[in-house]
């Protein structure tokens, strides 16, 4: 088994990382992701955020940056910087968990549809088309409203609505892989279809899945921010989207309390930009058709 893994990683992690670093797009993306993951993972350990630690009186509400609150305070007198750090963690967590669901469902359906073709393909692709044309946002709002404002629900809703693109891409790659001669060779050796999928198809679609996954993370983070901004976020786990929501409803924008809404706004912008840059750069590396274009 370890030998099989070795095969996958020969063109593995280090190789791709080096390639990414050489591409300016990939390098900027990696830097941004490095900074944001530092903010999301390390900072909350040293500056934990306690949502119940509210200000004592009216004078501590929506104060500007000061010695005690480097990024001021929110409408309840809580520290915005600490909130920003923990919000990064929630946004990233939801984005990544939703992406895992989306990738497993999408690549599973894509590989099976592409490999078996025929009727199964038709059936799975109609389902995919359905999820592709379903207006995602209203459905997310409806589902979020039905199942409640809970982080698990949000992850599930986003995850199960963002897989069709992955399924389409993986399917088309699988369809072309299926025409390669090593598939009939494996069959003539006596391989079962599942074994062929596992040993000959999956390793080939893996780079594509990874590239696509990175882009999906960006989309999922944005979806989470959107849902939270409209007020469907989990009120106990404040993400950047939730921060924007509360800054909006508390009138921080009207009052010019920029320290409250600018940090999460730019946070979302940067994290999405980071994933998108890395994703596109990775796609460029793995897809020979894009090579030499830039």
């Amino acid at each position, binding site marked *: 088994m370890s030998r099989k893994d070795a095969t996958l990683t020969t063109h593995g992690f280090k190789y791709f990382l080096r390639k990414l670093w050489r591409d300016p797009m990939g390098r900027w993306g990696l830097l941004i992701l490095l900074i944001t993951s530092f903010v999301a993972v390390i900072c909350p350990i040293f500056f934990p955020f306690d949502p119940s630690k509210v200000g004592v009186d009216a004078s501590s509400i929506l104060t500007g940056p000061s010695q005690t609150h480097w990024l001021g305070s929110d409408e309840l007198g809580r520290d915005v910087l600490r909130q920003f750090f923990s919000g990064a963690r929630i946004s990233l967590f939801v984005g990544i968990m939703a992406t895992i669901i989306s990738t497993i469902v999408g690549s599973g359906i894509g590989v099976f549809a592409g490999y078996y073709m025929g009727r199964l393909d038709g059936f799975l692709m109609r389902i995919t088309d359905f999820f592709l044309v379903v207006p995602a946002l209203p459905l997310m709002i409806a589902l979020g409203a039905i199942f409640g404002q809970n982080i698990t629900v949000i992850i599930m809703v986003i995850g199960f609505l963002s897989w069709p693109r992955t399924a389409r891409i993986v399917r088309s790659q699988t369809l072309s892989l299926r025409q390669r001669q*090593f598939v009939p*060779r494996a069959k003539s050796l006596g391989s079962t279809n599942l074994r062929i999928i596992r040993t000959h198809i999956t390793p080939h679609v893996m780079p594509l899945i990874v590239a696509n996954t990175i882009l999906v993370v960006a989309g999922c983070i944005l979806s989470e921010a959107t849902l939270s901004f409209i007020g469907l976020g989990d009120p106990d786990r404040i993400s950047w989207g939730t921060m924007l929501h509360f800054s909006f409803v508390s009138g921080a924008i009207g009052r010019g309390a920029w320290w409250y809404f600018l940090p999460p706004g730019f946070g979302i912008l940067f994290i999405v930009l980071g994933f998108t840059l890395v994703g596109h750069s990775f796609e460029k590396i793995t897809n020979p058709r894009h090579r030499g274009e830039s």
Partner: protein
Amino acid sequence: MSEKFSLSIEDLHVSYQLSGSAGKNKIARAVDGVSLQLHPGETLALVGESGSGKTSIANAVMRLLEPTSGKILLDGVDLVPLQGSELRAMRRNFQMIFQDPFESLDPRQRVIETVMEPLEIHGIGENQEQRRDLALAALAQAGLRPAADIGDRFTHQLSGGQRQRVAIASAIILKPSLIIADEPVSMLDVSLRAGILRVMADLRDQLGVSYLFITHDLSLAWMFADRIAVIYLGRIVEEASAVDLIENPMHPYTKALVSVIPVPEAIEGASRTILSGEIPSPSSIPSGCRFHPRCPLFRELGEPEKCLNEDPLLQISAKSESHLVACFFSDPSKGDTQ
């Protein structure tokens, strides 16, 4: 009766339904009633142009496509009705060497994994170590030395000749009784061909494996095979021992093929017959003898009615019991009396 054959193909038909606007409900008869017998340890070459149906026969025997009708007996067992796990278990007895070694080996696998794969599929060997040893032995047998060194490489790092040896190693590792080789050297440099063919010949002697050797190159068939069957448009037109077929070709099609084999010195009095036109589509097989539109003998004899209306059968010729030919006028003895 079928017991003594390694492979016996009986009246095999393979047809494809053509779809699309051009050929609605048209049926292409790629293999149109082919029977072949192969003795254990024997090499039979199947020679034909592209589009003659030779690869369809290979794929049908390998059960990579479903034959329309007919029997395929391997060591007396009919493969056609087998399905699922029964068929997969049976597959260890017949293996295939594919035409293009650049396509048939997974570029993401190491050589050793490629060769160990059949063992893993059939659960041969007690552990990975034992399978590894078997694989290294097979690589050495296929002429890849040092085997351990080459085993650690990826297939995409090897040359075409080396890859085809890897394919051979993975085909022989299950010790099959039959190997189908579909144009195994046509994608290789001419300088490498002899080496590959020698390895295949050595394995035939060591393992007693029989080959169905598919090629478009008559001189290659003559070099490598014991017997040659010439196929034209899905039907065998002539079958004889390799020497007999080359020295005394009877069917006008075979004659034309033999006449264009390059020889070092021009044989006195020998003229080359260049066939006109292309092989017709298997969806519109000509009536009567399927070769008549391109047949030089047909024109020479003044276009006899018989060729236009009757389909000649593959029959024992007057010359020899083992020389079969499908032509009304090929036998000089018969031809004179007509």
